[in-house]
């Protein structure tokens, strides 16, 4: 389930892209989930664990993928127990955060109101220990904290 802590959270990794650059594992990049996320968000293809083909920049290293995708990959694969700041992700990452939350117990920190779309979802807001099911319910709580 996706669990969100809204607002400032001192123990969270504030800038996940920097953490990613120093801690990612090669095998994370070629995992089918990463390949799909990199294709969807960055419009780029994973050629190998150390090479990405970007439509704009041409062949790039893993360190040059977007900060949003780096954060998604950390959410999916990092098992250090760290909590990542999901505000490094744009709205085009929201569906993937929901997806990762379906696959594991995921806790993220969020410092802005992300648009999770028009469909129903289940997100636990840790600040209130309350589950929200759609954007209206989410916004009602989020405006108190971010």
């Amino acid at each position: 389930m996706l669990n969100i802590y809204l607002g400032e959270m001192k123990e969270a990794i504030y800038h996940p892209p920097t953490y990613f650059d120093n801690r990612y594992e090669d095998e994370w990049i070629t995992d089918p989930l990463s390949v799909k996320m990199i294709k969807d968000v960055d419009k780029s293809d994973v050629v190998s664990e150390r090479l990405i083909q970007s439509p704009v920049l041409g062949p790039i290293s893993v360190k040059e993928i977007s900060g949003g995708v780096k954060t998604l990959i950390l959410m999916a694969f990092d098992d250090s127990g760290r909590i990542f700041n999901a505000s490094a992700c744009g709205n085009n990452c929201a569906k993937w955060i929901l997806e990762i939350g379906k696959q594991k117990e995921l806790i993220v920190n969020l410092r802005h109101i992300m648009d999770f779309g028009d469909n129903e979802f289940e997100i636990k807001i840790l600040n209130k220990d309350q589950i929200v099911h759609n954007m209206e319910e989410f916004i009602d709580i989020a405006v108190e904290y971010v």
Partner: protein
Amino acid sequence: MKGKYKVIVRNNKLHYEFEIKRNITIIQGDSATGKTTLINMLRQAENLGESSGVDVLSNVPCRILEGVSWKLILQNTAGTIFFIDEENAFINTEEFASEVRGSDNYFVLITRENLYNLPYSVEEIYGLYASGRYQNTKKIYQQMYRIYSDIQEFPIKPELFIVEDSNSGYEFFKAISDEKNLECESAGGKSNIFSKIKNVKNREVCVIADGAAIGPEMNGLYEISHKKKNIHLYLPESFEWIVLKSGLIDDREIRKILETPELFIDSKKYFSWERFFTNLLIEKTKNSYLQYRKSAINKTYLHSKNKEKILNCIEAIQW
């Protein structure tokens, strides 16, 4: 610092082009739109100059502000556009806000966080998008777009007004609402708008707030007005700007200023534009029958002819 500055940042693959015209500009939006790449190119150009292979074309220096010495750098620099990436947590601090206040520099901040310490405009919150190839070259042309440009469909016919202001602006709209049997409430500050909105149920509501400084609230206001179709946002620069724009005070200088406020509003003196418009209105009406006070509306503004002039200027609302 005042004025509008065109900035071009380019290499052989990317061509960024945009204009900066207020002390605070925010860039946010989707991931993978080139925000960090822009910062990296600016950093390379700053550190290595021409040998970086990056061209930065601007009438003023464009620099990156980051690291532990940000405050020292800022205190010793003027006439510069500073770009700050989201990894710099200091942008959300009161310490940073107090350095921006009175600074003779412009700031472009890359962040999705709502920076409540800074009064930035709804007009200056942008995203980046690739608009195609640049002049038939292989370069991708990156431009900025206003994130909140499609806020509402106007005109709107509200039953209830929620006015950010509690002073003269509120009193003006309250008087008009009473006359037209509409409701009008003051939120008593922009941070209280949400608690007011929560209680409106299905009534058609128009929130009137100062666009010049509402930026930090826009993330929530925009999302809520999109989900609840009865919530409408009317965000002029400020009430004083409406009065100035209405032509109630016939003054050539006012008209000239309103055409290009950025040429007249000094970031060193004015943290945000609405403070400038307030001062301008006070100054232009001093010792006249239209003398303006922020704390309470001068009843002359509610005289039929004057009132109509101001209302005619508010095309977004059907009275």
